[in-house]
């Protein structure tokens, strides 16, 4: 009989030191003071929901493709594609979120997949964040075209990436979401692109600590 082990989860991005283990995840506790910062928030739970247009769950999620909304409980519901939603919740909540959908699925064909471990999730915040992204992403990030809580998928530095604008306390902020194996690549590219505006890496206790 196998002995009891306490497994350690790691993100695709090497955490900038210092690090510690929180909730089973190795995370950075570095705190940046720059106005432009990049944080790895991969431990957040990510659940993909797919449903045909008529399915009951589509109506319950309450947001269409291209938009996101923050639920009262803090969970971010992203309309990540036609008939596709991504739920972003606190670390460890994936099965809860999935279960919720299963319960509420109602009529029609729908499915749920936990992508927590399949994706890297970064948060880029600061007034110059759109300028950093404009070096990498062909989509217009102006307020007119991409206001707060807009969601789209496009290329970032030649990598297909989900972008959600999710401003923090009025400060420009983007959640960037790609396949896990390229997480370090995306992180490195953002650090390079942000250098001219003084970008700094930060850990879980910097502003993203407000993340739920």
């Amino acid at each position: 009989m196998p002995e009891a082990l306490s497994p350690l989860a790691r993100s695709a991005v090497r955490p900038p030191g210092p690090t510690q283990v929180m909730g089973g995840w190795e995370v950075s506790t570095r705190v940046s003071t720059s106005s432009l910062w990049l944080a790895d928030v991969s431990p957040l739970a990510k659940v993909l929901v797919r449903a045909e247009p008529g399915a009951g769950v589509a109506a319950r999620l309450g947001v269409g493709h291209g938009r996101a909304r923050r639920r009262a409980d803090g969970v971010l519901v992203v309309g990540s594609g036609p008939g596709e939603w991504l739920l972003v919740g606190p670390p460890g909540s994936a099965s809860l979120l999935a279960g919720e959908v299963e319960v509420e699925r109602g009529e029609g064909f729908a499915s749920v997949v936990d992508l927590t471990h399949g994706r890297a999730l970064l948060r880029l915040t600061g007034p110059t964040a759109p300028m950093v992204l404009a070096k990498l992403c062909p989509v217009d990030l102006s307020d007119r075209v991409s206001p707060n809580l807009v969601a789209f998928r496009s290329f970032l530095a030649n990598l297909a990436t989900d972008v959600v604008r999710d401003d923090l306390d009025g400060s420009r902020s983007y959640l960037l979401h790609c396949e896990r194996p390229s997480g370090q690549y995306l992180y490195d590219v953002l650090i390079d692109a942000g250098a001219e505006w003084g970008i700094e890496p930060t850990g879980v206790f910097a502003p993203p600590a407000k993340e739920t």
Partner: protein
Amino acid sequence: MTATARREARRLPRQPGEVIDRDRRFEITWCGRPFPAYPGDTIVSALAASGVRAFSRSSRYHRPRGILTASFHDPGCTVQVGGEPNVRGAHRRAEPGMVVSPQGVWPSLGVDLKAVSQLVGPLMGAGSQYKTFMKPVALLPAYQQVRKRLANGGRLPADPRPACYDKRYAHPDVVVAGGGPAGMAAAVAAARAGAGVMLVEEEYELGGHLRWGGPDELAALAQLRVEVESEAGIEVLTNSVVTGRYEGNWLAIVQRPAPGGPIEAGGPQAVVERLVKARARSLVVAPGLIERPYVFEGNHRPGVMLSTAVRRLINLWAVKPGEEAVVLTANSSGDAAVADLQRAGVEVVRVVDARRGGGIVRALGPARSRRQRAREALGGGLEAVLLLGGAGGVGGVELPGGERLECDLLVTAVGWTAPTSLLDMAGDRPFYDERAARFLPGGRLAEGVLAAGGIAGDGPLDQMVEQARAIGRLAAGQRGEVPASPREGHPALFRSSTHGMVDYSGDVSSRDLVAAVREGYDSIELAKRYTTATMGPSQGKLEVANAVAVVAEATGRTMDETGTTVWRPPYAPISLGALAGPRHEPVRRSPMQAWHEAHGAEPVVEGQWVRPGHYGDPEAEVLGVRHAVGLMDVTPRGKLDLKGPDVPKLLDLVYANRWAGRAEGAVGYGVMCTEEGVVLDHGVTGRVGPAHYLMSTTPAGEATVWEWLESWLQTAHPEWKVHVTPLTAAFASIDVAGPRSRQLMERVVEGVDLSPEAFPHMEVRRGSVCGVPGCYMWRLGSTGELGYEVNVPASYGLFVWETLMDRGADLGVGAFGVEAQGVLLLEKGHLMVGQDTDGSTHPFAASLDWLVELDKHDFAGRPELVGPGRGGGHQRLVGLQPLDPALVPPEPCLIVEGEATISGRVTSSRRSPTLGRSICLGLVAPHLATPGTVVTVVLPDRTRVGARVMEHRAHFDPEGVRLRA
């Protein structure tokens, strides 16, 4: 001191519109000697202020070349700056310490041995290279070596410093190409109408021709500058050019840095050049006009300048362009040049007014006495050569009737070329306007493209500005009338009675063009290609109208019938560095890749994946798997999650074998074909829930298979209820393989009975591994040994890998890499798609007949696999063993019959450490596929060796006893 003083002999007193900062003098180096310069000077203006007249030698005849346009396009002012070749010396600003040298001369600008080519000039007319050296062929390479030494451009740095190039996207409402008065006015009007505007100017400052104008122009410029600065919605890019317009107003803008620093301060490294890619709603094209040179004998001589060149030299940089001038004028620019010259103290020997029928015949070299005088004054030697441009400079001019005037400056003002390049790229075709004597936009513009300023028409400044404002408002989406632009008459002056240079950078004369026409190259495109006119670094901006005029004259056609050559992007040169931008090549790494590299693994790149090749001794890794237990990181293996009631239908359609009715926990192996019946991919699929399947693909096949499934679901069967989600990245995959693998698994797995009865070969289970729940375990055996592929939620991949290594230490566990895996697969005769198959391999050829169930109603590729003559007659994949067990043929070697009949090839070939001999897979013709046949393999050195076709493709344990253990 005296030397320096003499060197600024041609600097004028302060001029009202000058752009130099006289308070900060510095030095630059030219031909190894120091020369003074001020901030604001171009390289050429600084040198010209010290009397330098020649900056380069021409490409074919190696004649000295001086200032012609004093702008970016100046063909004779291309220089080498440090390690940077082909710098536009009449545009690039001088900077302290710049080391500038002439290009393509040997040994020096003054004494260029290549100039001997002038002697054979008459024999080197257009196309002469096509008329000699046809034979003997053996001489060709030597001839080409000589030609090569005559190549003209600059030199690349021997030891390149990595430079920083940048790229970004922009989404302005309006882009205005050209920051002259029209462009500024259009930008202001558009911004006032609420548009976000990007105003792009080629020079370092806004203003266009107003900058080198008189007091009225300077006042108008000041006013426009205030207007531009007060509009927050205008982003001004100077020293930048809209260099291409593509579909949907997709614009390429090249942005070059201001002197002395990066494009914006604060960056970690100076940006050399940036490409801005703008998707604009409207493009306003307002580049102004380019002054046209005049074709006459001697027009290449240093000292022959355009009127705009002398006006720029005098007014912007306070440089006196000569001492005694003759001016040929046909327009107000020439008249203004006369006034400027007189104000600058240049003796204007004669003004020849073309509007009153005046003309010139040819430019003459300096009279001997004059040259002598100058040389004495300068002390002779190199100095004289540098300052006079050798014997090539202008010494006089011959007028009709034979009158000769002495002068060292010959100024022409004979008309304009509208640079319609961006309009052409937007679908327009310019037409020749006889009255204005220039090509004008044809008015067939794509939506969202407008023209303003001199390119569109003539007229007084305030009228042009008003029109530009109207166009700016239109560009911003407002409605309104645009006043028509008048067209002023202009004499048609292209060539005098003599022949002269048409293409300065290519050294192509009007005589060459006429000769080409006579030889049958009588359309502008043929004449251009035959002579190379307009194909040089100035991209035809200066030469195209003159080339058309000469060809028109020679063919007896009109300018319009002759047409122009097509302006092709880019409008302005752009560095490869800026086009490439920062290198963005995504790579993919498994959660354990850092572990592999820390443990000595050689990283290999497969597609985007970085993988462990081997850890030092691949043969030992193979034996470890055969005798104990090995771990391999197989994360890149494609994994697709399939959910929904109709999954079996989808599987039946894409796999060649049957899928309906498989039990939960069951795993099947299948092959997929394209509609052409060619092997697309292969892999296993397992049923893990009532309506839930997991499919595996080859690492390279993941994206292809996913798109393939989606194409069936989205286009052919939208009614099927199936959701496909790629999960390759969500799980770290670890192959646990070897006779002791079950022992190791028993130490770490919870919730799954691992006994052979409860969990047999080709089944899948879900459970917890090393305390991590939600893992899938597949009992597979591609290595031929008892084995499990463990799929762990990716974040725990490294933890589980390290735990397995730890818990298996006493069992002899070790890691194996891609190389060892290849040997293990080959020992078992498993094919690798893409290596043992190619773009035409049917499943029968891959000896996968048992996976093709033709009695199914339909599956992708079936029509190509049924019936006579379809899918038959192909090669077969067989196991091969070289007769010499020590011989490992390289991959691939051909299998032949007779002298040169190809009957197959060795597709995979390795030494098997397990069997102690070489083993292969090969595709052979059907008649050679019988076991026992000895085929002939040709090695790269042409020796031929025998190899035996084996009974089984598996060289080891063909019955598969070990993997079922």
